[in-house]
């Protein structure tokens, strides 16, 4: 399941629901991405996430389908924030359920790498007295490229 959340969500509560919905799974991997409190030595107040309603969901759906086609997973949950996300708040939750741990770990890792480089989000960092759009990072592209090498 894919959900965009325009306000704060509770990753632990979501994970609990996901576990209950996948009671027969042998492995559940979850990842929570949060807004860092600092960037380049400056205090971060918030991250603003711009998105294209409808099309952003489709871009995430494409990523989830690639994961399902590649790994033997039972279920995946992706919750991604939009709008204003304060420092310390969760920005993304990825949960993957499978019979065994390896596909769950790998699919969750893949989903995060692709969410960072393929999902349609544009992020503006609000620092003290300054705002700036975040440019794509080479590290993120390198992380995503790992899945294309094999």
């Amino acid at each position, binding site marked *: 399941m894919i959900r965009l959340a325009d306000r704060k969500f509770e990753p632990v509560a979501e994970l609990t629901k996901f576990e209950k919905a996948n009671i027969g799974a042998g492995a559940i991997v979850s990842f929570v991405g949060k807004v860092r409190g600092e960037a380049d030595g400056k205090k971060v107040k918030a991250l603003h996430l711009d998105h294209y309603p409808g*099309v952003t969901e489709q871009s995430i759906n494409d990523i989830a389908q690639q994961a399902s086609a590649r790994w033997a997973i039972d279920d995946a949950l992706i919750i991604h924030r939009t709008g204003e996300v304060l420092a310390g708040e969760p*920005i993304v939750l990825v949960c993957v359920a499978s019979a065994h741990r390896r596909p769950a770990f790998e699919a969750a890792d893949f989903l995060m790498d692709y969410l*960072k*480089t393929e*999902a*349609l989000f*544009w*992020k503006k960092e609000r620092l003290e007295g300054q705002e700036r*759009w975040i440019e794509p990072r080479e590290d*993120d592209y390198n992380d995503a490229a790992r899945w294309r090498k094999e």
Partner: protein
Amino acid sequence: MARLLFFGKLADLAGGRSHEIELSEDVGSVADLIIALSAKDAALGEAVSHASVKFAVNEKIAPAATAINNTDEIAFLPPVSGG
């Protein structure tokens, strides 16, 4: 009227997300639209001409050669950012 949508830093440059414009007869494709935008606003034109910018026509990612008309929604998508 065509609806133009700008995302991320392009929205700041364009002075807002959504702009309704009447496409003139010589604007038949996204590439033509970029030329028309450049003539009106050089900074915005340069930004949307960048190779990293993708386009969507009626919510589907589309190449610059895609035909457009006055009923279409054309979106300009800068590269997504990791954060």
